């Protein structure tokens, strides 16, 4: 188990404390995983020194390789480092609890109002803006991808499959993983 090199101070951190710190990270993270990174960095590194800069980079980089919310994956890794499996449970419940409570409150009390004309007008504008933000995500993600003949070719091929054959979108990840493993040789990594 990797938590053997967890430090003394960490081993004594209470589960309640872990839950609370991740609860705060979950509460103050609006707008997806990459918005969470500054908050995560502040709470775990700047404020509490639970980890050093390099460990933070490791956690984030491993979290982004695995599917699922970066926030949850980071909580898993940090919880495990600090207190093993109970730490994982404390960190993960901590980070997802705020949003689940907020969303449940919206579902129970506000979602019924979405059919009102004024709310629909709001969603129409907001939804259009989100489309623009997704387009911006294409730009950001594209910039972070090594663009060469193979990556662009594979991306285009997957797009053709998605648009022309209307396959299940998960096929994109499966094809990418399977083909990518073959066409990107080790020395490129």
């Amino acid at each position, binding site marked *: 188990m990797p938590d053997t090199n967890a430090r003394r101070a960490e081993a004594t951190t209470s589960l309640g404390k872990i839950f609370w710190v991740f609860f705060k990270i979950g509460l103050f993270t609006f707008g997806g995983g990459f918005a969470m990174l500054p908050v995560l960095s502040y709470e775990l590194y700047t404020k509490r020194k639970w980890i050093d800069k390099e460990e933070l980079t490791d956690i984030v980089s491993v979290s982004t390789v695995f599917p699922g*919310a970066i926030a949850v994956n980071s909580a898993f890794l940090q919880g495990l480092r600090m207190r093993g499996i109970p730490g994982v449970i404390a960190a993960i419940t901590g980070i997802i609890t705020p949003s689940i409570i907020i969303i449940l409150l919206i579902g129970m009390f506000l979602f019924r109002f979405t059919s009102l004309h004024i709310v629909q007008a709001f969603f129409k*504008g907001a939804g259009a803006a989100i489309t623009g933000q997704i387009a911006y995500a294409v730009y950001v993600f594209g910039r972070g991808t090594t663009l060469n003949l193979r990556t662009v070719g594979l991306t285009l091929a997957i797009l053709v499959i998605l648009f022309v054959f209307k396959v299940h979108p998960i096929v994109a990840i499966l094809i990418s993983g399977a083909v990518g493993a073959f066409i990107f040789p080790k020395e490129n990594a």
Partner: protein
Amino acid sequence: MGILFHLFASFFLIGISAYGGGIATIALIQHEIVAVHGWLTATQMRDVITIAQMTPGPIAINSATLTGYKICGIGGALLASLAVITPGILLLIGYTLTVSHLRSKDTLNRVKLALHPGILALIIYSVYTFGSVSIDGLTTGGIAAAAFLAMLFTGRRVHPVLIIIAAGLLGIAIFH
């Protein structure tokens, strides 16, 4: 029981491809919830995703919680939320059990490299799937373009949620 199983299976599947900050899951969420199961209409799905973007927490989990609640109440909300984080957690458990420390960078980088084209394609596809329910003319198209440019030129100085709220208020001013 049947519907709970399908709910779990759907969000488990969504969890498998939840990469790149959640944006890449939008097309998949729409596909599973609207096209495959018909649990929500396309417009309801747009509303759910918009709320998920505007509230704290990962978009995939927020959409799962809200969709699950709409379909099966609080039990559905918790089940769908659990389902969407399960694949990542299972893989991380496998990873921590087999790789003794966080630093097998070579393998990790290879996986990342292999998956990048698929994730990029999914985000591009999400522009289309989400755009086709959110953009119905020049006005909404203009708002989308303005939001894109606002993100591009303000970088991270203006919070994305503020841009969504501003566009929503603009929507009220124009469409109401």
